[in-house]
């Protein structure tokens, strides 16, 4: 039980890449949960100042996401004109689909 908590502490990284024509990519690795939510929040704060036209989450290397993690992505969705998740790991894809958010994150069906 303690091990689970310990593992979940800082098990994530987030990089921000500023691309051309007002698009910003945030590449996240590891787990997106209540323990790592602030890492993503900080990255989003950096990426959305000023407000970009397109915000893209690269979640290919994310191996766990829970509801707190999803909440962070949904918060970020309000900070750009368009927000996409591309590419996404299977786990992320399944969670996004299961929660009816594929369209919102431009993932198609």
């Amino acid at each position, binding site marked *: 039980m303690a091990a689970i908590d310990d593992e979940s502490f800082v098990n994530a990284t987030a990089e921000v890449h500023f691309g051309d024509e007002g698009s910003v990519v945030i590449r996240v690795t590891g787990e997106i949960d209540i323990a790592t939510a602030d890492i993503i929040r900080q990255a989003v704060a950096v990426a959305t100042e000023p407000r970009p036209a397109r915000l893209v989450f690269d979640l290919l290397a994310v191996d766990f996401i829970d509801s707190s993690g999803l909440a962070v992505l949904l*918060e970020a969705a309000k900070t750009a004109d368009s927000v996409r998740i591309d590419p996404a790991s299977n786990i992320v894809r399944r969670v996004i689909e299961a929660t009816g958010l594929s369209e919102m994150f431009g993932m198609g069906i």
Partner: protein
Amino acid sequence: MAPLTSDSAGEDAALAEADGEMSDSGGRRRRLVHLTTIIVVATGVLLTVVLGVAVVTARDNNEERLLRQRTRETAAVLTAALPGIQTPLASSVEVVEESAGADQQAFLRLLTPLVEAGQPYVSASLWRTDSEDLQPLLVIGDAPMLASRPPAEIQAFLERSRAATGLAVIGLLEGDNPRLGYAFSSTREASEFVAYAEATLPANRTSVVPSNSAFAGLHFAVYLGDHEDPTQLLTASTPDLPLSGALASERVAFGDTSLLLVMTPDGALGGALLKMLPWLVVAFGLVTTFGSATLIEWLLRRRDDAERLSEENARLYANQRSVAQTLQHSLLPDRVPDVAGLELAFRYLPGVGGVDIGGDWYDVIPLDDDRLMFVVGDVSGRGLHAGTVMASLRYSIRAFASQGDMPATVLAKLTRLLDVAHDRHFATVLCVVVDIAGRTITVANAGHPNPIMILGDAIHPVETKVGVPIGVTRDATYETVTEAIPPQATLLAFTDGLFERRGESVDDGLERLRESARSTTGSLDELLTRIVDAQMHGSSDDDTAILGLRWQQ
């Protein structure tokens, strides 16, 4: 790097409570001093004492060695000085003897320069050994005190002097100013003459030693003879006799007798620092010991405080967890209403990690005799805020249902009550209306896991139109799906904690669920117990709510 964003309100409350607890337990008795500190002090003092004694011993040995060395040096100086007073006497008597007493001028010539103030002798005289009147032939300076001695004594001394091969010392001649008398005769077989001289002793027999002399820092006493006889004292550096304390003595040959040199240190020969060294060592040792002890005691007390705080925290943590669970249970229905024709059961499993309230809930709302609404929802995240969001959503749904709203409308209205950008929480909600007589369910889904239907050994997902979760967009709309439920089918709705775990795929979770739900014998309540037991074998760190529904046979 990643600050934990567990519910801050809950932590504040816990801290406030912790403060209160700490002040309550502040009266708990503390140990006066730790055993470790006492051991450190005892060891330190012991070492200091041992070291101090060692230094004292070493210093005393050093002092003793230095004293012996200085005494030997002084004795050597004294020995070297003696020939200076003997040689003129020896030379003059030799010349007189050579001339058979004719050249007494030689005696005068040799000894006159030595009989003056500041010179060794106050009186020098030439005697015949066979003198009948026992008076000197020649006198330089004062009259010899020997001449006023009894004739037998004079006769005996002259005889002794003639027989002696070197200097003959008569000893101290008592008087107003005591004198030391000594004589030389020729080394020939039949000598007839004796050269005799007397020297005065210093005033009070005390010599003043200049501070820069070789004898500075030392007291000395010189006795005639071989023991410390006060009457035989020739000179000393102090009137406090006999000398006391650390002593060293040397004997110096002086004619037919000897001189005894006794010395003692006046202060420390090794210097003031060496003398103070033991005290410095002891002071340093004690300061170090008590300094270390204070530091150790301080560290031990800090450790005690930390341990006490840690115990308090553990207790409060457990306490808080139990408070959180109590609160959560109070927010959830503790029993479902009896509905004719239906079997209903539910379970709530708190997650294993953390003390915060989860946001999972379930609810059963009878609408009329033929219909009821059931809801399973999950507010994202944990903590007091997630709990309050959950409570507000749950009671809002009851209000909308009482107004006659159907599932799609309920969810559409609900989504205006929450905004993830503002509240940092969203919610998934499954809202189902059950037509009891018609054996159908009408389902609207806001991002929630689909319910499943267990029929025999098979598990079928109930496909729904999954809309966006509550709190994502204000203008979300939802579609309902109506499904017929076969007799003997069991419907399960749950939150994602049931089969979503870290490091495990959703399929694994579903398989586990399938295994535990396979046997459909027994009551619905027993089925949920089996599912929950299977769930408990692995520990989910998320809360889980399960609601089961079955038509009575």
